[in-house]
């Protein structure tokens, strides 16, 4: 058989196979199973496509909230300690109008409920990413419950409300900023029309006479010593903004204990030498110095969580932490976190 006729024969066989057109890359990838799709297909859209059946009451949500959410968001969703406040800044009139009025008038800090137009966004986000240090650990009904509690805090639903896949569409009609979004702008499409127009004037161009804004004096050193953030050679040097203070010591190698604390997420809320959200480790060491049984007591507190010793921001429980790791961390902390 000539070369061209064998090619034609091969083509004929290929065309006869039904899969040829659909799978240009044989051996690459495989079909996803229904169970796999169900495990990952967690998104919920504004039209509630993807929303699982379930329900949760404001009362159940409050219990969950106290246990899992207050550390970062405060008892009433008002906390600005870790993240921006969730609740506040909306009125009954806003719920009627679907527009948050203080967004027009004020230069106020914006809460989540002042911004969000779609309740599906909150359900989807709580379900996929909350609590912050244990995402995807809430059951479907728990997500409904926590969201019901938040909606009650925002005075969108009454205290005896039960949020469910059936009642959620009604709540959407009461979202305070539901009419507050706009899509008529040129920044969605790569060929969109710009909203601001400048011209490339080259000579004697009109400019205002004065400098409109300069860096405030107090902010000059707020980013550390700029001298150390520049190269020791080249056309310029960094300005010395150390203000006469000695340069901080070079970053020491991370100790195994600190590495453990980092890997377990402790350092998200704690630091060794200062307060962040929770107390500094040296502060804790000083408090418990010489106290008999301090180590086992603290190890239990780390696992169970607690509030009151260092203020009103609770520490969330850490049930997944092993006893060995909790013990090692506490021994390191009470020895001053060296």
């Amino acid at each position, binding site marked *: 058989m000539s070369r061209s006729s064998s090619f034609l024969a091969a083509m004929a066989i290929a065309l006869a196979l039904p899969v040829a057109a*659909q799978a*240009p890359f044989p051996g*690459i*990838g495989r*079909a996803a199973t229904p169970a*796999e799709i169900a495990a990952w*297909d967690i*998104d919920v*859209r504004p039209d509630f*496509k993807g929303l699982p059946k379930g329900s949760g009451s404001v009362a159940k949500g409050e219990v969950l909230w106290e246990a899992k959410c207050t550390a970062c968001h405060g008892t009433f969703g008002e906390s600005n300690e870790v993240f921006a406040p969730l609740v506040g800044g909306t009125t009954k009139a806003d719920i009627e109008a679907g527009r948050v*009025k203080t*967004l*027009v*008038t004020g230069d106020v800090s914006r809460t989540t409920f002042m*911004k969000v*137009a*779609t309740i*599906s*966004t909150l359900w989807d*986000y709580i379900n*996929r*990413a909350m609590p*912050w240090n244990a*995402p*995807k650990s809430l059951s479907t009904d728990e997500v409904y419950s926590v969201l019901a509690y938040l909606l009650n805090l925002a005075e969108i639903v009454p205290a005896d409300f039960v949020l469910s896949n059936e009642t959620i569409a009604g709540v959407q009609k009461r979202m305070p900023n539901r009419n507050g*979004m*706009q*899509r008529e702008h*040129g*920044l*969605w*499409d*790569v060929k969109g029309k710009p*909203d*601001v*127009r*400048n011209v*490339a004037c080259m000579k004697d*161009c009109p*400019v205002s006479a004065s*400098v*409109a*804004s300069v*860096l405030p004096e107090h*902010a000059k050193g*707020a*980013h550390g010593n*700029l001298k150390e*953030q*520049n*190269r*020791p050679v080249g*056309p*310029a*040097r*960094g300005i010395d*903004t150390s203000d006469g203070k000695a340069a901080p010591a070079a970053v020491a190698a991370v100790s195994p204990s600190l590495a453990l604390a980092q890997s377990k*997420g402790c350092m*998200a809320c704690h630091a060794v030498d200062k307060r962040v*959200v929770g107390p500094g480790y040296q502060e804790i060491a000083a408090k418990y110095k010489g106290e008999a049984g301090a180590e086992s007591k603290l190890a239990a507190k780390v696992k169970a969580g607690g509030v009151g010793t260092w203020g009103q921001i609770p520490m969330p429980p850490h049930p997944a932490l092993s006893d060995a790791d909790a013990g090692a961390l506490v021994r390191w902390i009470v020895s001053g976190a060296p």
Partner: protein
Amino acid sequence: MPSQRPLPGRIQPAPEGFLDARQIEAVRKGRRGFLKRAFAAAGGAMAGAAAAQGAFKGESEILELPEHSRGLGQPVAARAYGLPSQFEKGLQRRESPGLTRVSAASVSFAPLQGMFGIITPSGLHFERHHQGWWDIDPARHRLMVMGMVKEARVYTMDDLMRLPSISRMHFIECGANTGMEWGNVAVPTVQYSHGMISCCEYTGVRLSTLLDHCGYDRKNGKFVLAEGADGSSMTRTIPMDRALDDVMVAYAMNGEMLRPENGYPLRLVVPGVQGVSWVKYLRRIEVGDEEWATKDEAVHYIDLMPDGRHRQYTSIQECKSVVTSPSGGQTLLDKGYYNVTGLAWSGRGKVKRVDVSFDGGRNWRTARLEGPVLSKCLTRFNIDWTWDGRPAVIQSRAIDDTGYVQPKINQLRAVRGTRSIYHNNAIQSWKVSETGEVGNVQVF
């Protein structure tokens, strides 16, 4: 050297031949008052100094051979994965103090003030994490393409790395880059004002290859959702025409696999679009017929306008530029010649031209563009400047191939107010004072 009166703050490079060890140490410690006295005593001129202290024989750097010229250096592979010089410690990614409360939901900025060309070294790429970063075992990572497709499919990294690969250079800029400066000047240096931008060569597979492979619904599939595998499971909506254009599923960056902080082993690359859409640790692509209004397109990354409404799905990073040297927080060495340099980019295409002004925008000159000039990629520009010692305000203004001219901050504010946070692509001004110190200012 012409006669001159040294001003406080300006750096006088001292010929070390006429300073003794103690005096050199004093200079190194930054006691510039000493320099002023030394130069005053020496008549402010090298000739005078030489006359006063005996003939200048030359610098010790040349006259006394250093150890590295007289000994044996380090062996190969002493550092199996290479590191920058010990003298480059200043150039690091840094957090802006007070911007965020917790470092696992924060941002670190790239040190643009000390970078060259257009490629960001992988270790200096800016970071933005919403719920901390992970180093994921690539053998256990999966990508699923599902939704409005003929057949939902699962791909391993092996599968993805066998598919036809492409390599493209693109910038990635956070939508909130320069966001702290909408109202007024807030940060001292270009690292903090513009450092949420990086530019790399990415290697991976076209998203369209995967969408075709799964048989996406060409009639009703109008959008795709991209989702990450980390705790935040970041999600963003991308219109189908963008997804089919130049979007990539990338596993490599600058010739090596992605860094964990940048999404190892798989991330989405969405050229021209803000960084939040470049989903890291990419695990899932869903084809759908409506937008998703996810948290990062319904609570964050929405731009507050003067009428109290928020713009939703703002994505494209419009044409922008910034002079990186000299820039805020630096002091010029002295009067004389400088190669003023900076970066320009556009999310809508190529940079066509960059103009630079040294008098606060009254008069402009066109800068040299360094090649390659690529679409949706950083472009380096350079321009000659001889500083005469008088105050100056340096600005750059980029124009892209759609003809769009980078706006002034007052023009942006006239349309968008001051509360937007996102998409501030205004012309940046750096004021050079007569001491040589460069400060962040707003001039328009």
